[in-house]
């Protein structure tokens, strides 16, 4: 049983990391919290669902449309964020919370409250490894998550843009002095974040169910993983995702399914209580 729990924890955890990446990047570069993160994810899922359902577009080709949708909303959000006054972090929470309500109600209007799922027939089959069974759904999720995380890691480590982004995350003033356009980096972070959300959304629609209020949980776990990792460390993000996935699965097995929601919440509060001065202070 524990191998199943471990595998489920790692698969889920990798997907959690993919979900959290966009949030962490936007937060790291622009110091704004995007509470509409989960809603954007669900929106991308709905776009894919709509294409798949009405036009029979296969899953692979729904990704560009989903990315386009999140890109538009994210860039609008970025424009709005740039008009905010101080304190930025707090006002961004309020603004994106409003956007979350707006998106939730918009999706309720267009897609109704029914549960939707993008059905991929092959996801039901799978491979046996001794006693362990892995469905293609889980495998796809794991592979795609790790692939995207790996690509982002490469981008951040080995390209000029990535280095500029990392410099901005580590110290905005210094980056600015070094001639990096910090505002431009903010737009870039939102764009990459949108692409990441656009990739995760349709996957979310294949594995979990889409409904308008499904986003909050995704937002909460993105926040938890981001706070766990601090910013700018992709490896720690994966670790955070795995720990969260494993802790949730473990809680279900040990305590019962009704205690699951508590795990993420307690983890987040503990992390915050241990680091009361916020994330950036420690690095200065």
């Amino acid at each position: 049983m524990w191998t199943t729990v471990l595998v489920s924890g790692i698969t889920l955890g990798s997907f959690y990391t993919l979900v959290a990446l966009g949030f962490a990047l936007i937060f790291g570069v622009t110091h704004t919290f995007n509470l509409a993160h989960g809603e954007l994810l669900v929106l991308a899922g709905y776009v894919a669902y709509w294409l798949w359902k009405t036009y029979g577009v296969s899953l692979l080709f729904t990704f560009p449309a989903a990315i386009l949708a999140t890109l538009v909303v994210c860039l609008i959000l970025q424009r709005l964020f740039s008009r905010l006054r101080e304190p930025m972090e707090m006002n961004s929470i309020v603004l994106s919370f409003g956007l979350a309500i707006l998106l939730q109600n918009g999706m309720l209007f267009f897609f109704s409250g029914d549960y939707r799922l993008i059905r991929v027939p092959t996801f039901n089959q799978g491979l046996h490894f001794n006693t362990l069974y892995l469905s293609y759904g889980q495998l796809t999720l794991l592979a795609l998550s790790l692939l995207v995380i790996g690509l982002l890691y490469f981008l951040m480590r080995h390209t000029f843009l990535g280095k500029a982004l990392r410099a901005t995350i580590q110290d905005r003033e210094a980056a600015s002095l070094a001639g990096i356009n910090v505002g431009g980096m903010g737009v870039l972070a939102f764009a990459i974040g949108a692409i990441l959300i656009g990739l995760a959304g349709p996957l979310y629609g294949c594995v979990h169910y889409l409904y308008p209020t499904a986003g909050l949980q995704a937002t909460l776990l993105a926040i938890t993983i981001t706070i766990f990792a601090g910013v700018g460390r992709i490896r720690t993000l994966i670790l955070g995702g795995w720990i969260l996935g494993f802790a949730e699965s473990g809680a279900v097995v040990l305590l019962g399914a009704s205690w699951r929601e508590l795990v993420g919440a307690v983890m987040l509060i503990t992390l915050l209580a241990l680091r009361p001065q916020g994330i950036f202070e420690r690095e200065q």
Partner: protein
Amino acid sequence: MRKKETASQKAIQQQVAWAAPVLGLVLLLLLPVFARYNDYVLQVFTHALLLATLALAWNILGVSGSISLGHAAFFGAGAYTSALLSLDLGVSPWATIPLGGVLAAGIAAIMGLFCLRLRGAYFALATLAFVEIPKVITDNWDGLTRGSLGLVGLPGLPSLRLGSYHFDMSGSLVGSYYFVLGYGLVLLVLVTLLFRSNLGLALQAIREEEVAAEAIGIQVQKYRLLSLLLSAFFTGITGACYGHLIRYLEPGLVYGLHFSAIPMIFAICGGRFTILGPALAALVLYPVDQFIFHPLLPAGHEFLYGAVIILAILFMPSGVWGQLRKGHFVSIKTGSIE
């Protein structure tokens, strides 16, 4: 010339500031007479008043500059405490409603232990996560709270006897309406007194410049804890009233995100740093939502709340009422309020 203009503007603002609330109060007092023929109007305003008290209570903490996304924890705790005491022990709701507030304050003390060291955005995120704790406990402690079964058949508010005069609070919508209106007015007076007390001044000083406030000897942590406790106490009372008004409770209902989000939205739209703003926003926005947007857009009418809060934070961070009363903010130097 310019001086004169600003002077007359100020005079107009002063008049608006007095006339609008007085007119509003008269209208609210007379509403049951107008709305006699339509119970729906009365119910919407009863609920709007209840939400106004929620926003007022939220703002006791909000005035110190903190934003809480977890007031549903206090709302639900208050509702459950009062409901269980009156249902299982048969205690009169007059006694159990304040006890609901006390337990809510107790939970706030625990929350304060973990969250009060946090500032700004991090405090907001911690409160958002904190709601899960009382919610999951209430949901799973079957022996005490009946868990997911919910509570059915709560006693309503008992009737009030003053000599020969008999005032039925729960039996009629008018009774419930005046009860909530009365509670709202009491809370308004208390909040006004509070904001003008040393505590209120200290909180506003903390909001303006925390380091400076600490430097001049304000015990920042003590005052923030005090405001959190008071805010939770009144939120708990509002939750308890809600329970006795609708006579039905379920963990998902009273601990839902709805009751965390709504007071924040009203407070920010109305004006976080004013006394009346949050309550006015509740009394305007909720009826607008119910009478105009819900019939137009049955699925998705609450987009209104999302839209107003985005507009408010972008263009009117001090809220509509705050904008009208501009120049009447607390000034630390003179110590005068509004």
